[in-house]
């Protein structure tokens, strides 16, 4: 896949595969194209060249509105909408029952007292949990998580990591973007290393030490970061 950018391509012939299970971590330095890659998966961006396939279907041929409910996404900065937490969940599913709303919150570790709270008055960590709950309300088959812990406190960071692992338990694969190598080690079943708009290595976390090519190793040892 190639995605043009203002000065240089944001993705430059990136090629790779994400397994249909477990937590796959896209790791790489800032500006390497990880987020762009992720955004091509739910068609928030379209590649200038190349194709994205989701379970054998070229996503360009799928209805983007249906695709985005099958492939949910949580963003780097929490994006609570105006209104209560309940209102937020109902943006994802207008007919959501009270019971389903409570369950959705329970799933992300919040109790039902949050339903009536103003979503914009929540802490960063609480808001990010609500955003995940909102995404899960659409019952996605895959969840994309774009540096979701970069603006939350350490406790929430671990909480969100556990939630990602819990999604794997119910057979919802997760694609998780981060530039944090320790987080990658904690979380990944599978790793794609992205450097300069290309996927330079794919494998298990343990394969990085032995099989990774020089450009991946430079990032992993901190030289390129």
């Amino acid at each position: 896949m190639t995605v043009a950018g203002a000065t240089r391509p944001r993705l430059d012939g990136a090629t790779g595969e994400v397994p249909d299970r477990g937590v796959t971590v896209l790791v790489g330095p800032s500006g390497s194209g990880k987020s762009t890659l992720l955004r091509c998966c739910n068609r928030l961006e379209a590649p200038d060249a190349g194709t994205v396939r989701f379970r054998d279907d070229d996503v360009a041929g799928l209805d983007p509105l249906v695709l985005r409910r099958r492939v949910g996404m949580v963003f780097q900065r929490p994006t609570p909408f105006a209104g209560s937490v309940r209102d937020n969940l109902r943006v994802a599913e207008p007919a959501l029952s009270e019971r389903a709303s409570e369950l959705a919150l329970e799933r992300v570790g919040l109790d039902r007292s949050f339903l009536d709270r103003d979503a914009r008055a929540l802490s960063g960590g609480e808001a990010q949990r609500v955003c995940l709950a909102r995404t899960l309300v659409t019952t996605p088959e895959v969840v994309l998580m774009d540096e979701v812990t970069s603006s939350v406190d350490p406790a929430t960071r671990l909480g969100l990591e556990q939630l990602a692992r819990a999604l794997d338990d119910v057979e919802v694969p997760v694609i998780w973007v981060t530039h944090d190598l320790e987080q990658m080690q904690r979380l990944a079943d599978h790793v794609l290393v992205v450097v300069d708009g290309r996927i330079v290595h794919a494998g298990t976390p343990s394969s990085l030490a032995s099989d990774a090519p020089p450009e991946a190793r430079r990032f992993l040892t901190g030289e390129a970061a």
Partner: protein
Amino acid sequence: MTDIGWVGLALSLLLVVVAVVLSMWERLGLERGIVWAATRALAQLLAVGLVLQVLLEPGVSVWWGWLWVVAMVGIAAVTVQRRAPLVPGILWLAVLAFAGSAVVTLGVLFGFGIFELDIRTLIPLAGLMIGNSLAATVLVSRRLVAEFDEKRGEVEARLALGQPASAAAHPYVRESLRTALIPQIETTKAVGLIALPGTMTGLILAGVDPIDAVQVQAAVMYLVLGSVATTTTVMALGIRRRLFTPDHRLLRLTSPGPPPAAR
């Protein structure tokens, strides 16, 4: 009928002198600006007056009036484009907005026979309609572009939940429209309490009975209100269409440097 004559006009220039003297006294450095503005206004008004004098001769076809309206729509659209240049294709969108508003508002005023269709009514009414909706049209355009820029994360989060572009954009379109319309509503509410509006003042100075002047003024205010609502709505919906792709992606308008998505 009040007729101040050329001598009266020249004497009224004393008030410009007052402004210039005050500017010099307070060292505002605005003297040249004041003189230029006053001169330019007089020249523009005289030019318009001369053309109107020709057009208002008996027997001139009303089509010349429509031609005048077309020119005004064009000038207003260029002004919107210059003040809100970020949106691609905004010029034609603005033409559509003003033309659409002209059809709706002038359609009501002339269609129901509220005013008799004549060059003498067409040109001033169209001028009031376009002139008074210009600021709100620029405002809604700039506001909406800024809103989509600042709230980009929220809009994309809505899209990522599977909302179509129209639904994902709606809260922000609504906010921009409210921002653009509320000043006009406030002005309409305060009319007569704070200042006597221009049309009515002009008519009274020209010797028209105040109640007759009020009737015309009220119709003109409703004209402006309807026209502001129409132009801003057409602009907002048009800009929304242009900022999203057919496959429901939000385009990026300001992308100097690496975009945030590449982090």
